[in-house]
């Protein structure tokens, strides 16, 4: 399984989903795929059954039983509700129970994800939430649906879905709590998969490809841990200046992370 070493992630799973919901098909056929997805979402089908076929069959870790992408989605992302238990909204008096792997957060990730996908598909189709399920869309010529790109930002206080669009491109951003995974302290990746690339003055990264996801930041990071215990005079040095501090420094660097690190393949995942 990918390790999500950045706060920003697309990776194989979200790239497959984006490709599936942005099919290079004639307009009516492309719209039909999104409409079918919308119908199934509204009918309450479990999300893992709506995934593109390549995700439904993705075995992340072979074994007995194998750990599949559907397992990852249902266990890590959705917690108990993903394992078949009905989601029971907690009351204010209930003890906290973390959802899935989301650090110190409890909530209905499944429902948020589903609603976000539903709204994303509707925006891509150019229809409103209460419009009927039709492949023809608004009156006039039938247009292809907008392309959809999914991005995951990991390290926020809570789980939310964000829809952004301009003209014929929809960008969906999921901001989620951290998942406990380690985070690269610099934009420089340590994964040296063949699809990793580094921009250099002599050989800049190539923007001529169909897909891309680059990270731009300073090359070094310095951490300032909290001060150690020292004796002080009365009232002096009482308040902490803050929690740990971070300084980034050095040259501005541009990297193309590998897909394994949350980047995308240059040809996408058709």
């Amino acid at each position, binding site marked *: 399984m990918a390790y999500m070493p950045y706060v920003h992630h697309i990776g194989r799973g979200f790239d497959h989903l984006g490709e599936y919901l942005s099919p290079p098909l004639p307009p009516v056929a492309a719209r039909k795929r999104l409409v079918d997805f919308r119908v199934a979402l509204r009918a309450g089908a479990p999300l893992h059954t709506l995934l593109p076929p390549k995700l439904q069959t993705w075995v992340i870790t072979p074994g007995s039983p194998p750990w599949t992408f559907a397992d990852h989605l249902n266990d890590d992302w959705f917690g108990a509700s993903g394992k078949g238990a009905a989601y029971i909204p907690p009351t204010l008096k209930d003890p906290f129970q973390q959802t899935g792997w989301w650090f110190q957060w409890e909530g209905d990730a499944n429902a948020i994800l589903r609603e976000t996908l539903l709204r994303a598909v509707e925006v891509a189709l150019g229809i409103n939430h209460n419009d009927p399920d039709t492949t023809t869309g608004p009156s006039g010529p039938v247009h292809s649906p907008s392309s959809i790109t999914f991005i995951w930002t990991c390290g926020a206080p809570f789980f939310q879905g964000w829809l952004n669009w301009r003209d014929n491109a929809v960008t969906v951003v999921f901001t989620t*709590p951290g998942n406990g995974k380690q985070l690269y302290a610099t934009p420089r990746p340590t994964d040296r998969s063949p699809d990793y690339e580094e921009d250099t003055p002599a050989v800049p990264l190539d923007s001529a490809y169909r897909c891309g996801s680059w990270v731009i930041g300073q090359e070094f990071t310095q951490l300032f841990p909290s001060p150690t215990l020292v004796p002080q005079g009365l009232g002096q040095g009482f308040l902490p200046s803050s*929690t740990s501090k971070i300084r980034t420094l050095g040259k501005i660097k541009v990297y193309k992370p590998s897909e394994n690190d949350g980047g995308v393949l240059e040809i996408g995942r058709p």
Partner: protein
Amino acid sequence: MSTLAALVEKDVRAGLGEGFDIGGDDVHVLVAVDIDGAERGAIAWEAVAVHTREFAGLEPTGATLKVTGMTIVEDVGSGETGAKFWRVIDWAGVYSQLGVMLNGRSLVPEINR
């Protein structure tokens, strides 16, 4: 109130008071331990404080918090001007009460897989 307890209360009011308002009866001694007679002592304390000024870069929230800590005092006999204060304060609890969140990711220079 003992000299030790009075010193710690003054320390809490002076130090914590830079970021918080503390009422007249809002600093409480939980446990007091004398060590080496008048030279050293330890106090576990709690204070009820209102976040009215910038604290650790955070704008005032107006939140009322319970702050707890343990202070060891050296040279108790030297009084306000000479005593030294070793403080262990539950700042994590303070941040939590203010809604400051950890982001659930640990920074590392390399990730070994």
